[in-house]
């Protein structure tokens, strides 16, 4: 479902003497439907960079990034937009929303975007928010004023609203209490059970051992640091 072949990434800083910083070389990995792969490595090793390359947020310098058959490294913007709408979900560490939009709508949005009926989308959103212990009295408010932990849970609810066949999870359990952490882990297990291919970053070792089928150390892909 997700396959990287010899991907490299470098940043060129034109305004700082055109310094070229290579950050990734020869990155290859393969994730089958129903499988969860954990990215590991020290902070700064390039876990998030790799994830952003898969999402098309960072432009790969070379190699192929195949998600559901589409090469994200070469695709047209509208193909990537369609891929993100239908196929590839991304739970980032930060929630970015339009001010004033109620939480329930924020969570239902990915479902509405794929043409789900409004009431069904709102029902599913309500179900997810309830599972993640967001009090119902907050649902009609914009999440911009919520606490960090609440925003993160809203973000997770939004990320799991649509049943994406491929998902990227950037520290989904970070800073959650035991009960919510458990809920998130079961959401991940349910996603795997329905056949989603998942790439995740988990600093929480127990969580990683529970949901991930294999680990990839991204420092192997760091230029000049061949493992």
């Amino acid at each position, binding site marked *: 479902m997700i396959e990287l072949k010899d991907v490299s990434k470098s940043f060129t800083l034109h*305004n700082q003497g055109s310094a070229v910083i290579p950050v990734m070389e020869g990155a290859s990995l393969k994730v089958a439907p129903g499988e969860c792969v954990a990215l590991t490595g020290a902070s700064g090793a390039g876990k998030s960079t790799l994830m952003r390359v898969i999402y098309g*947020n960072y*432009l790969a310098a070379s190699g192929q990034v195949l998600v559901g058959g589409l090469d994200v490294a070469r695709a047209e*913007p*509208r193909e990537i937009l369609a891929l993100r709408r239908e196929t590839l979900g991304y739970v980032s560490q930060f929630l970015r929303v*339009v*001010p004033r*939009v109620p939480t329930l709508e924020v969570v239902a949005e990915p479902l509405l975007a794929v043409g789900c009926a409004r009431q069904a989308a709102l029902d599913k959103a309500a179900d997810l928010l309830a599972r993640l212990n967001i009090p119902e009295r907050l649902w009609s408010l914009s999440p911009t004023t919520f606490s960090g932990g609440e925003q993160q849970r809203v973000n997770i609810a939004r990320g799991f609203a649509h049943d994406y066949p491929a998902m990227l999870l950037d520290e989904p359990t970070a800073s959650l209490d035991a009960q919510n952490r458990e809920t998130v882990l079961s959401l991940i297990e349910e996603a795997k059970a329905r056949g989603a291919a998942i790439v995740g970053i988990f600093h929480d070792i127990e969580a990683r051992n529970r949901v991930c089928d294999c680990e990839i150390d991204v420092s192997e892909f760091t230029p000049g640091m061949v493992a």
Partner: protein
Amino acid sequence: MTPLLQVKGIEKHYGARIGCSDVSFDLYPGEVMGIVGESGSGKSTLLNCLAGHLEPDAGQVIFDTRADGPADTVTMSEPERRMLSRTDWAFVHQHARDGLRMSVSAGGNIGERLMAVGDRHYGTIRDRAIDWLGRVEIDETRVDDRPSVFSGGMQQRLQIARNLVTGPRLVFMDEPTGGLDVSVQARLLDLLRGLVREMGLSAVIVTHDLAVVRLLADRLMVMKDGRVVEAGLTDQVLDDPQHAYTQLLVSSVLQV
């Protein structure tokens, strides 16, 4: 899928100066494209060429019309182009007073566009005007007030209602949130995003505000000195800018 708008090699010179040069892109139904760049980069010139307000020196602007399919709006007859700009196109000006009739009531401003496409029943026109005032969050008791007594944010919302009442498929916006304070801006952004999604609109938005494009635009074009220096997915261009100018632009934004 046929692109709604195909722009090919648009050029516009002001004497020896370049307004914009060699701009090409396709816009598909439902897509929102942002154009950013500093003042004088040619973004407004480009927008005016696309919307038929300026005649480009070279190039084509091919719009997928409802009746006849793709047609070049640059070489189209004036009446045909005017008809398009009243029906399938909309243009939201930076200054609401450029897009409104200040001496006509709010309801009249909305109704005028309906009458231009053949609506004649006063009751229907008034009902639709009131419906649209509601959608842009203007109280219906203000329907008979003139926009000259509205606040800047209300005028901008009225301009949007006037433009969208005929159900256009393509909206051009020139700095739609420029000059509004941030809370009004947020409200307008939320409104625009909702309308874009509900009506399946395509839009071309010119702005210098990167936060606005991040929230509204799927795709982004960066202009400098009349040329497109970088184009791509909005978040990719903003998070991993490739061109020196885009890097400068992104790194110059003040963090709040």
